[in-house]
């Protein structure tokens, strides 16, 4: 799809109705080289997803379970990035947080990482990075469902 920013915004808002009027910010150009799962792990040069076979351009940590369940992704982020599950998405200065979304409560559809008190940072598929509120990507149909897990790790440096 070759779309202008306004066309992209219209497309995003048609898929994610909660984005409308939510003051989300587009932060990067389109890029099919990495996805939300990678971005939550601070990688912008590989597409992270569990596959059965070697797939060029796609990465999955070797010791992580190779399926798309929430539990397996929790294990993966624990193995790769030292995140651990937590109960609240509130901003805490001493912790970095990520959110995993699911439509059915079992299978991961999306991941986002927290920026500050207001925004979370998502890579939208092959599209842009955006800053958005946590529930802005929630919803039925092609939206990402709802937040199923929150994870956190101690921030390595503050300020």
């Amino acid at each position: 799809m070759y779309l202008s920013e306004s066309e992209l915004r219209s497309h995003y808002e048609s898929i994610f109705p909660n984005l409308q009027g939510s003051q989300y910010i587009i932060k990067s150009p389109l890029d099919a080289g990495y996805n939300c799962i990678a971005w939550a792990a601070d990688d912008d040069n590989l597409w992270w997803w569990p596959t059965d076979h070697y797939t060029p351009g796609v990465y999955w940590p070797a010791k992580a379970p190779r399926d798309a369940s929430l539990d397996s992704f929790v294990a993966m982020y624990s193995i790769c990035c030292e995140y651990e599950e937590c109960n609240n998405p509130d901003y805490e200065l001493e912790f970095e947080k990520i959110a995993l979304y699911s439509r059915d409560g079992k299978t991961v559809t999306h991941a986002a990482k927290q920026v500050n008190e207001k925004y979370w940072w998502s890579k939208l598929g092959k599209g842009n990075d955006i800053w958005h509120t946590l529930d802005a990507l929630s919803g039925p149909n092609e939206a990402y469902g709802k937040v199923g897990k929150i994870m956190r790790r101690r921030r390595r440096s503050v300020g």
Partner: protein
Amino acid sequence: MKTLPAEKFRHTSHSKLSELLSAFEDYDTVPSPSDWIKDDVPSQGGQQPFFFRFHLPVEPESQGNLHDETVEAVSQFQCTETELEQRFNDFVEKWHKDTFLEASITAALTHPAYYGIIGLGERVIPLILHELEQRPDHWFVALTALTQEDPSNPGDGFDAAVQAWLQWGRERNLLK
């Protein structure tokens, strides 16, 4: 019960697929066409025909009826470059539209439009390379399926894999 005379279809490179399909309907022991495994076919005489080759998977109990090895049935579609490019572009746009916001690479690489592009055969390799150059995306699996090659290296990032395939295309004059 009528069984498939395998030899009849081993050298049918100029048959039309519709004729082949209707011929198969006369036999009782041929697997459903939906169960066939599609493969590519080498170029002939410098031409790049628009081929479909189907391997009929032979079940152990049916081997005696069919053949002592996989039966091949080959058919050929001919279409113009313009028609091919139109089909390719239609599949590409459908694929982008349906998978643009997907995190799952599995969903993208198993989308019917992606299979459709692979099914267009080796003539689309230059079109895929051009698309990869203009709008980098996960074309590596399709290119490997069509060429039986993989110039990227394990551990390459996305950008390195893209560059490896573009270099592969330039070396073969497949990329203008």
